[in-house]
């Protein structure tokens, strides 16, 4: 008797499947791909913040040898991009932000293209600059977009309960204004695209790093006025995404227009400076928050008024209230909640989506208020959170349904592992002791969608699965890989269903001609949605295999199982036949069948109604993070010493991949709080380079202690939830709370750069600052 043992890859440390090639320098990113006969595309960007374009003279550029195409707004259809369709790829009437695209060139070499840009003469008439969003809706403010004379790009209003009633019931109320600054994605691979248009067939092939290929196909067809069926998007491996590639941005259609005009493939890749100037930012925000609680810590109400600087054009940044409001309404039980947001136009850069999608901003305010309420009530930060924390079974005021919920366990785990209670008290007592080094500890928690987010008509993902005669599986998934390791997780999930080792599965995820539809990589949805889709396809394959095996063996399908590349008897694992043999017997017999299956998975979530009510995600991720810091009161330098994080991940699928996501997110959150600052002054970006835009470097990272809470989500793939965005969300709030614990000073404006912290400390001591 040959018994095949059961084995599982779930929860193991599985290296990323594509890592060996990457580590050998073999992986070809879009920057590394060159098509025969390709031209180099370059964009002329304005150096004005707000100006009318009087004339553009491209004659000299066109005459330069080696130049194949020069385009301005006059040469392309008048169609806007983005959420409000207000962003024409090339600007013809006026420029509204420093990055604005006014002309584009395709030439034989980069040098010639740059030379040609210099030859383009633009005459401007400067317009008054609108640099402060608080001025945008004042009478007499310059109008940025003619279609929106009130300068309001978007508003969101949400309410449950009655905040006036909540106020009445409150024993304490706190109110603060928070400011959240500009930061940007800084993907290590700069943006780029190659457009290859064949005029005879009308076929357009794009080599693009988009995170949403199928939505882009549609958008491209609208912008370019062409049949979507002729558009093929190939996605080479991507040098980081983090939300930056979720919208269509001007450079993409520009590359296509250039390729069409030049009748040659055009490659357009940013410089790092362009990446800083011309890719989207995280949404800056000004939030006024008012919160109340009863003596025992029970929350009574929350009222929030948020002003979002929309910049000159509307990308996803303006829509972050979708996510923000969840934190205000539903992180804790809040009986009364009022939420108002306004996104206004200005002449500043515009924001896109960025890992966390508004939740870093919302959590920064809510989690500081939890500490402020606790302080007023003489409660400790953990107690007030435990008092109000959500639990499974809860349906929130906003209609969010919490099935699996490990929130309280996250809080208690992080608190006990970091010795929070003792340290919090100790550090607070040491505030007044002499010495310039003050230690502090701070807690923050979060909720984020963990089972997709139903924002588009479908939040689904398709999978095609095929098996060859040797038992090898290829899955074609709509879900793109952006470095987060989804490919490996999908393979693991399929292996688990089919009892195969990891090397028996390959994943194809990079060509719209091959892969089925998916809404895109965002909202931490890929593991959950694409995972369930892959499981669905694998189960269908398994059914087929076991039914075929049943026929051969005179057993029933439910008496059989797949293990280790064999069909085995379920009861005792006795080997029945090798899987390849079965596959070949299906294929090369009179049955003449291949094992090929498809599955489309749509999560159980619903669309929110017009009042933003409804359960938008199939499940939710929870976390608590505790930061321990040291403040040097002589310099204002805040050093992040240790982060203790507890994340409700549903279930751990790939422990190493998960840790990698959490660690990367923690450090990204550290940068948001402490080091990163895209300095925008009067519409200009002062620091478009890594020299003065400071990412966290290796010597600066904190010690990290990460725990996973396995709440086993009923709908999740093997019980898992999406967590890609979660780890960055709490950091700024936790650090703010820690600084308060260390110094007694509450900081409500990001970033906590040394100078900002130092100023706040001096001011708090009654000192004079200039």
């Amino acid at each position, binding site marked *: 008797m040959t018994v095949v043992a059961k084995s599982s890859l779930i929860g193991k440390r599985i290296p990323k499947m594509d890592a060996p090639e990457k580590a050998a320098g073999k992986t070809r990113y879009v920057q590394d791909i060159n098509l025969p006969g390709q031209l180099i595309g370059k964009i002329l960007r304005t150096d004005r913040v707000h100006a009318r374009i009087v004339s553009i003279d491209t004659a000299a550029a066109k005459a330069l040898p080696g130049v194949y195409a020069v385009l301005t707004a006059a040469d392309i259809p008048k169609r806007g991009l983005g959420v409000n369709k207000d962003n024409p790829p090339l600007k013809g009437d006026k420029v509204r932000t420093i990055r604005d695209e006014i002309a584009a060139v395709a030439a034989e070499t980069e040098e010639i293209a740059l030379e040609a840009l210099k030859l383009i003469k633009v005459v401007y008439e400067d317009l008054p600059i609108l640099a402060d969003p608080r001025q945008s809706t004042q009478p007499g403010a310059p109008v940025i977009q003619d279609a929106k004379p009130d300068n309001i790009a978007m508003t969101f209003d949400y309410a449950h309960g009655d905040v006036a009633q909540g106020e009445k019931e409150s024993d304490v109320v706190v109110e603060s204004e928070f400011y959240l600054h500009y930061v940007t994605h800084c993907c290590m691979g700069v943006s780029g695209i190659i457009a290859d248009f064949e005029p005879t067939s009308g076929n357009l092939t794009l080599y693009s790093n988009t995170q949403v290929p199928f939505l882009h196909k549609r958008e491209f067809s609208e912008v370019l006025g062409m049949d979507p069926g002729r558009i093929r998007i190939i996605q080479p491996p991507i040098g980081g995404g983090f939300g930056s590639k979720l919208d269509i941005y001007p450079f993409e259609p520009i590359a296509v227009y250039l390729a069409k005009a030049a009748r040659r493939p055009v490659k357009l890749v940013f410089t790092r400076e362009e990446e800083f100037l011309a890719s989207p930012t995280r949404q800056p925000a000004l939030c006024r928050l008012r919160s109340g609680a009863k003596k025992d810590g029970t929350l009574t109400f929350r009222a929030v008024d948020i002003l979002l600087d929309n910049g000159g054009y509307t990308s996803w940044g303006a829509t972050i209230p979708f996510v923000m409001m969840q934190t205000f309404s539903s992180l804790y039980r809040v009986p009364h909640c009022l939420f108002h947001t306004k996104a206004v136009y200005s002449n500043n850069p515009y924001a896109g989506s960025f890992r966390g999608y508004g939740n870093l901003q919302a959590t920064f305010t809510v989690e500081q208020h939890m500490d402020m309420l606790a302080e007023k009530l003489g409660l400790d930060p953990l107690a007030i959170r435990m008092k109000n924390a959500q639990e499974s079974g809860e349906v929130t005021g906003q209609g969010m349904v919490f099935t699996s919920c490990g929130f309280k366990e996250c809080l208690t785990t992080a608190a006990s592992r970091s010795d929070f209670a003792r340290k919090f008290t100790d550090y607070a007592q040491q505030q007044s002791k002499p010495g310039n080094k003050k230690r502090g500890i701070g807690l923050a928690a979060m909720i984020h969608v963990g089972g997709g987010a139903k924002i588009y008509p479908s939040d689904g993902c398709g999978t095609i699965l095929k098996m060859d005669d040797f038992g090898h599986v290829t899955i074609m998934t709509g879900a793109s890989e952006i470095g987060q390791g989804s490919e490996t997780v999908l393979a693991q999930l399929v292996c688990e269903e089919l009892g195969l080792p990891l090397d028996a599965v390959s994943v194809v995820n990079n060509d719209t001609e091959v892969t089925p539809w998916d809404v895109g990589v965002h909202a931490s949805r890929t593991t959950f949605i694409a995972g369930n889709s892959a499981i669905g396809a694998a189960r269908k394959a398994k059914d087929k295999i076991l039914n075929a095996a049943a026929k051969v063996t005179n057993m029933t399908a439910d008496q059989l199982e797949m293990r280790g590349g064999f069909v085995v008897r379920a009861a005792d694992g006795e080997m029945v036949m090798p899987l390849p043999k079965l596959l070949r017997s299906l294929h090369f017999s009179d049955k003449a069948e291949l094992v090929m299956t498809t599955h489309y998975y749509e999560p159980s979530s619903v669309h929110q109604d017009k009042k933003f009510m409804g359960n938008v995600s199939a499940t939710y991720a929870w976390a608590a993070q505790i930061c321990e810091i040291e403040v040097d009161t*002589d*310099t204002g*330098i805040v050093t992040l010493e240790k982060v203790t994080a507890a994340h409700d991940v549903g279930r751990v699928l790939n422990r190493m991949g998960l840790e990698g996501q959490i660690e990367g997110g923690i450090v990204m959150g550290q940068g948001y709080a*402490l*080091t990163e600052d895209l*300095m925008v002054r009067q519409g200009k970006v*002062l*620091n478009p380079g890594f*020299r*003065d835009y*400071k990412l966290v*470097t290796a*010597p*600066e990272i904190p010690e990290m202690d990460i725990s996973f809470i396995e709440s086993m989500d009923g709908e999740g793939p093997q019980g898992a939830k999406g967590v890609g965005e979660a780890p960055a969300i709490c950091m700024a709030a936790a650090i703010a709370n820690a600084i308060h614990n260390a110094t007694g000073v509450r900081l409500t404006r990001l970033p906590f750069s*040394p*100078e900002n912290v*130092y*100023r706040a400390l*001096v001011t708090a001591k009654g000192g004079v*600052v*200039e």
Partner: protein
Amino acid sequence: MVERYLAPTTLDEALKALAAGDATIVAGGTDVMPQSQAGRFKLGRTLVNIRRVAGLQGGAKEGDEIRLGALTTISQLREDAFIAKTLPVLAEAADHFASVQIRNMGTLGGNIGNASPAGDTLVPLLVLDAVVELRSAKGMRRLRLDEFFTGPGKTKRTPDELITNIFVPAPKPGFVARFAKFGTRPALDISAVSVGIAGIVKDGKISNVRVAYGAVAPTPVRGRAAEAALEGKTLDAATLAAAAKAAQGEVKPISDRRATAWYRREMIHNLVKKVLADVAHG
């Protein structure tokens, strides 16, 4: 536009190349390359790469002076045993300098030639009373470092001159020198301010005091007021406070994206105190 590339291996060849005019000296290139790529620095018709010129590397004691070759890399300053022993303040500055890769390429001569007010070897060299040796086809001259810089990126060097060596007096008994750079990272940070202090500490008193600041003026500068506040004094709390106040009062920094003028003055005050505390403890 660059028309010619030369990589001389002897000093004479290098000086001849410079004498021909319109030449750009490249040592490590860590300033020349990014500045020229960004269009902030115009390359001459001839690119003279001096990296292979023999005899300009490393440090050695010569009489009562220490000679540092202009081509000594920042990595060498950081790791060289002789420098660590005789001029530890330079090794300390080198440790806070850029990244491993840049330290491997960048040179001492380049840091001086680039004449940035934030140049990290310049402040320690100022407190070490450094002298710059310049050579051209016409001859050799020596200039005191505190008279060498004339503005950001500007020096008294003529285009045909090469910085060949830096000389500093060999430290006398009791000599202490310390350097501190303000920053959130151990290195890879352009100084928002930096402070160097040197002197001879004997019986708790400090003499022959040298104070210098980086990034608070168009060039790295000596802190004469702070020096006066310290000269001959016992390094007690009152002296430290007085020197820090004097330093804060004498610097005239500007506001830029790295820091406001006010903050820079505050940091000079606090850094001077910190460095003096280090000096007091040896």
